[in-house]
């Protein structure tokens, strides 16, 4: 079974803090993704990575950066957290270049106060 694990289920941070969200997958998948989920907006892609040290911007990259130093780990960084970044963050991974199913982590609900 593919497992995608996010480091925290719930997180509360203060405005202006630098926040790290970690994601680890155990199936040697090439591709990893970060989405945020907000009511009525579905899942919006923040960044994705198709290989170690390779990344591409999604639809809403502003205010975020990512790091992928090892194949199994993909980190999302909020450089200076703001209240409008309060959301559910979902990490996902998938195999290969051709479109295949994405496996999601359990999500991190981040609240910025």
């Amino acid at each position, binding site marked *: 079974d593919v497992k995608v694990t996010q480091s925290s289920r719930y997180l509360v941070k203060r405005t202006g803090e630098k926040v790290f969200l970690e994601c680890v997958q155990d199936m040697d998948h090439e*591709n990893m*993704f970060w*989405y945020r989920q907000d009511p*009525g*907006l*579905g*899942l*919006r*892609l923040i960044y*994705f990575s*198709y290989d170690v040290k390779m990344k*591409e911007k*999604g*639809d809403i990259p502003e205010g975020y950066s990512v790091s992928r130093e090892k194949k199994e780990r993909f980190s999302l960084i909020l450089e200076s957290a703001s209240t409008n970044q309060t959301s559910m963050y*979902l990490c996902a991974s998938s195999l290969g*270049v*051709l*479109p*295949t*199913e*994405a*496996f*999601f*982590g*359990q*999500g991190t609900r981040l609240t910025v106060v």
Partner: protein
Amino acid sequence: GQQVMQIPQYQHVQEGEDFTTYCNSSTTLSNIQWYKQRPGGHPVFLIQLVKSGEVKKQKRLTFQFGEAKKNSSLHITATQTTDVGTYFCAGRKTTDSWGKLQFGAGTQVVVTP
């Protein structure tokens, strides 16, 4: 704004009834995927459609990909309480890089016994 439109946003269904949720894009999609997210859970892959006009069935669920590859539908027959959740479609525009899967806002399904 949302590039893949999904309707309806909410669907109340009596147990035993059928319903359909629709996914529409203004541009051609290379593929369409469907996911189900149970309350409190994370999205789980259901199916992928790639070919124009493709129809796939999973027990009581029927998935279609339009001839022009711009729309898709999910039809559920004889709804059961286990069908409760939010159903998302996700597609990649042929003009986008392969990793940019655009999710719809989802259809939240409530089943009344």
